[in-house]
């Protein structure tokens, strides 16, 4: 049962793992009486009491009810969160959003850009439990140091393609190029589902690629560049033009065919005052 905690569930930080570059993973154990089974792609509102509360994807969840969030220091709140000590109480409100639609196809191609690896990491573990799905991860970052979970991923028996803008490791270039190449060569398109997460501009580029192969309906994009307030789709802070769908509730995962009609996809975000900003 995917129970939602509507009020912040305040739990002590059980484990803090440094991922490098101002990025940490916080783990908590959800009391087993409060059974929940969140999906990859769903997120929680993470409350740092006395400070602020921000949306963070689930970067792992295991059968022991241990839940992890990987937070990158982007601004004040995320930065404060990366500096919390063990045992401090953090409020978890969620899970929110639709999560990825887990499709039983032969191949799952996961495309991550930067922090976009967080929800895809949980997706990998989730898919690994289904033995019959082949997983291909394409993961890019600016530099090697920003390739979080590199060692952990190296230990997994999945197909991996790393890339960096500067070529410090892996392919020199963008994940889109690798994806394009795979689609052009080895990938059996009919049996492939694509899952992408990263900056909206990268997602926009991916949409361009998959469209060329008419795969937009089979590509799921997880968006993150809108201000989230309520998380359950009522305040309207995070709507996409023109359809008025909310990222927090109707998303954050959308299929490419829908995004083709989203006027501001890859162009504008919305700030907390509701005004638009250029992405």
């Amino acid at each position, binding site marked *: 049962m995917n129970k939602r905690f*509507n*009020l*912040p569930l*305040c739990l002590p930080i059980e484990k803090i793992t440094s991922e490098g570059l101002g990025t940490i993973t916080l783990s908590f154990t959800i009391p087993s009486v409060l059974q929940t089974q969140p999906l990859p792609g769903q997120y929680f*509102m993470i*409350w740092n*009491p*006395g*400070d*602020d*509360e*921000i949306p963070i994807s689930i970067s792992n969840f295991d059968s022991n009810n241990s839940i992890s969030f990987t937070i990158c220091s982007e601004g004040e*709140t995320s930065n404060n969160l990366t500096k919390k000590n063990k045992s401090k*109480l953090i*409020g978890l*409100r969620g899970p929110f959003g639709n999560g990825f639609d887990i499709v039983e196809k032969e191949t799952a191609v996961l495309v991550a850009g930067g922090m976009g690896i967080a929800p895809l990491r949980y997706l990998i573990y989730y898919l690994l439990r289904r033995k019959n799905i082949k997983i291909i991860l394409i993961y890019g970052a600016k530099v090697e140091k920003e390739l979080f979970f590199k060692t952990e991923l190296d230990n997994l028996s999945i197909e991996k393609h790393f890339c960096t803008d500067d070529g410090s490791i892996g392919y020199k270039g963008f994940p889109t190029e690798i994806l394009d190449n795979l689609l052009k060569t080895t990938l059996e398109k009919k049996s492939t589902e694509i899952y992408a997460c990263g900056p909206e501009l990268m997602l926009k580029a991916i949409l361009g690629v998959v469209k060329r192969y008419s795969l937009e309906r089979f590509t799921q994009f997880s968006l993150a560049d809108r201000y989230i*307030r*309520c*998380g*359950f*789709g*009522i*305040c*309207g*802070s995070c*709507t*996409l*033009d*023109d*359809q*008025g*769908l*909310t990222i927090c509730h109707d998303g954050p995962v959308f299929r490419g065919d829908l995004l083709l009609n989203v006027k501001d996809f890859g162009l504008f975000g*919305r*700030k*907390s*005052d*509701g*005004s638009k900003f250029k992405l």
Partner: protein
Amino acid sequence: MIDLQIKVGDVKLRNPLILASGLLGSSYSSLNRAYENGFGAVTTKSIGVESRDGYPNPSIIYLEEIKSILNAVGVANPGYKVFTQELKEMNKDVQYVVSLFGSNPDEFVQMIEHIDEHIIVHSPSAYELNLSCPHAKKVGMAVGTDPEIINSIISCVKKSTRIPIWVKLTPNITNIISVAEAAISAGADALVAINTLKALMIDIYVKKPILSNIRGGLSGRSIKPIGIRTIFDLFEKYGLEIPLIGVGGVSKWQDVIEYFLAGANAVQIGSALNDYSSPKELTSKIIFVLENYLSDENVKIGELRGIAHE
């Protein structure tokens, strides 16, 4: 098919369900969608003179146990000038109400004149003056409990526009008639009641208030009996003299009827969005059974107004 058309003063709506201010009301897209999804009219988020980021999160919390919401968004908005751009994008068939907040008559007049000037073809159906937000400083309730300020705001605003002025009242008051009286005598075209009730919630492990703003406003089903009582009070006093829009805890078709029987001409719906998977599901479920009830009872919806007073 049953006719659900109603009138709020001179404003004709295809059905009595209006999207309440502050819910899905910060962009033209969500307002258009809500209208397409079946609302009779949609209200924008309250807009002010300057842009406001609103309060940090948590700012909106769902209280499952009492099917209610506690919020202190802090009237986040981009300011009236920027928001006028959103209004320009409204679909032409959409009936919308622009909600405004301010701290004095000048601010309201300034905003209304600007919008009237820039939105000529497809004007708002009404302006709703939010004199009732419980958690913003110097605006909302801060002005909405003082009959004199209310009177001067509405008098000034009425002189500056021909668009109907709806006035949204606060329930956080000893006697709502005092402010209703001020609004009516200054020329308000309809009263909207109620806004949220001042409330607060504390986490017992963190031992702090959950909302970043500490206090917030309570909405949703728990406040319905208070909203109904308020509309009843107003209708008892004013009868057909002024249109009344009932807000607070409407989530089912029965609630719509109840507000009408108490004296409302229409209702607004906010928190109940969370009870349904989409605005469409909300409006269609409510309207479907509403129609059955009206045909069983063999009345038009408007005829139910104030019947509980007989």
